[in-house]
């Protein structure tokens, strides 16, 4: 049977933008039977949004208070059970997908393809390894279920299809482990645009010097209507919260316009922005590796250059 299952990511109210991108990857496989499953305490609002997306055949809802928080130990057995009826099971390669899907793949007894960046055909895909220093072709043996995460930065978002797919409630299985409990989640609470999806991003690095210094980045980003990002060094130093980290182990993003401010351009950072449209680098060191990938560079002190740019806006 050739059918694709996508597990939706959402916050209980809204479908995450990563789902439309995962759907785009699924559409590229060329199988036109695509279902989206929504696990939630009350899945209806999210299911409604999923049902309007282009090319979706059905939306499956699995309602249970256990699904109020995304715990891999509770979700993976359900995904493995549902997945048995599909040839492909996809999730976005967000932290959520990365946490949950390998657990489901192991329960299904199959290997998994992480961070698919291109669909070659229904069994083969391209993905980055070594922090993006190499791109490989991964071929899943014929007849084996393809389980994989889809890299958001590499796919555009599927749009709305004009119709509405049927929504079907599925009964979750009764026995779920109680050895894992959600306690809380703390968000850094910036109210600017979302880093993962914003078309403009301004990132600051170690050069910002302090959380106080980092305010320059926030101000500049606000002027541009951009989301704020950061290098690992800036996050490690405590200037900004972890969810702003861009790179191999942070967020992989593809904005139209990216400003790297006081960031040297380590390979682990660059892997997070290689799909960006236009990269602007501001660095006082003309030899900084960031200039090798930047479309435009300004060499000098960022604390002088940023206000100058602002004055020309």
């Amino acid at each position, binding site marked *: 049977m050739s059918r694709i299952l996508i597990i939706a990511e959402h916050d209980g109210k809204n479908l995450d933008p990563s789902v439309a991108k995962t759907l785009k990857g699924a559409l590229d496989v060329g199988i036109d039977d695509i279902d989206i499953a929504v696990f939630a305490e009350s899945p209806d609002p999210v299911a409604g949004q999923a049902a309007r997306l282009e090319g979706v055949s059905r939306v499956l809802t699995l309602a249970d208070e256990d699904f109020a928080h995304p715990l891999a130990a509770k979700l*993976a057995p359900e995904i493995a059970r549902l997945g048995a009826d599909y040839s492909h099971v996809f999730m976005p390669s967000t*932290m959520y997908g990365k946490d949950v899907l390998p657990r489901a793949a192991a329960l299904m007894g199959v290997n*998994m393809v992480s961070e698919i960046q291109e669909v070659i055909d229904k069994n083969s895909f391209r993905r980055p390894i070594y922090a993006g220093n190499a791109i*490989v072709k*991964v071929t899943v043996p014929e007849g084996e279920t393809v389980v994989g995460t889809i890299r958001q930065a590499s796919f555009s978002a599927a749009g709305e299809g004009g119709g509405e797919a049927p929504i079907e409630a599925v009964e979750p299985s009764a026995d779920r482990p109680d050895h894992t409990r959600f306690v809380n989640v703390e968000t850094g609470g910036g109210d600017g645009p979302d880093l993962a999806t914003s078309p403009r991003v301004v990132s600051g690095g170690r050069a910002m010097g302090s959380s106080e210094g980092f305010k320059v980045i926030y101000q500049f980003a606000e002027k541009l209507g951009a989301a704020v990002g950061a290098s690992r060094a800036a*996050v490690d130093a405590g200037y900004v919260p972890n969810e702003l980290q861009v790179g191999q182990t942070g*967020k992989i993003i593809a904005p139209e316009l990216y400003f790297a401010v006081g960031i040297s351009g380590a390979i682990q950072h660059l892997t997070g922005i290689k799909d960006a449209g*236009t990269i602007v680098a501001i660095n006082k060191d003309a030899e900084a590796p960031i200039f090798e990938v930047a479309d435009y560079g300004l060499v000098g002190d960022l604390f002088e250059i940023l206000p100058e740019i602002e004055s020309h806006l």
Partner: protein
Amino acid sequence: MKILVTLKRVVDYNVRVRVKSDGSGVETDGVKMSINPFDEIALEEALRIKERGDAEEVVVASIGAADVQQQLRTGLAMGADRALHVETESAPQPLTAARILLKLVEREEPGIVFLGKQAIDDDCNQTGQMLAALWDRPQATFASKVELSDGKASVTREVDAGLETIQVDLPAVLTSDLRLNEPRFVKLPEIMKAKRKPLDIIALDELGIEDAVDHQISDFQPPPKRAGGKILESAGELVDELKNKGLL
């Protein structure tokens, strides 16, 4: 309680990895090899837990050819008590690695298995989650803080929204994120001492592992190069360029 920590031997993170011209793999000849950075962080955390008195023994394990013993020795020098080397010439993919680790877990019965969240060679980020599934135990991935009490672990995890805390019953699988700690440096006397610490070699067939049907990995390509850009003279020039491109 015993803690089992996995150490994968990988190309050092400072090396600029290059694809072989025939597309068959990446250059590894004469390249510096190290413990996967996330695994070093996992080991550091295990050692700190032991030093606080919450664990009695830290065992390090690696799967691979004979040369992984170098990384195991480094782990012993950092302070691990014992090492296990599962010997195989093939590079196991995550599901096979998880099956092998499950066998070690059944032998050693650790309270915590600590892995890195991701190996920086294959960048899979799967093995810990797969082990937890096969073992049917909790997982707490991408940990940036771990607290233990009464047979439970409170783990703060780096997720897209920020920091999530979950509580898991032990035994459990944990995977480390970068900000969990900063690993200690190894001192010379420790390296000498580590030579006398036990290192057991286990043959793969001794564990009764049937190989999973692997994914085929082929056609290695260098990443597309971004066209080198221009260095501009002034902020005004930049704003003009961006406006011309319709970006501002």
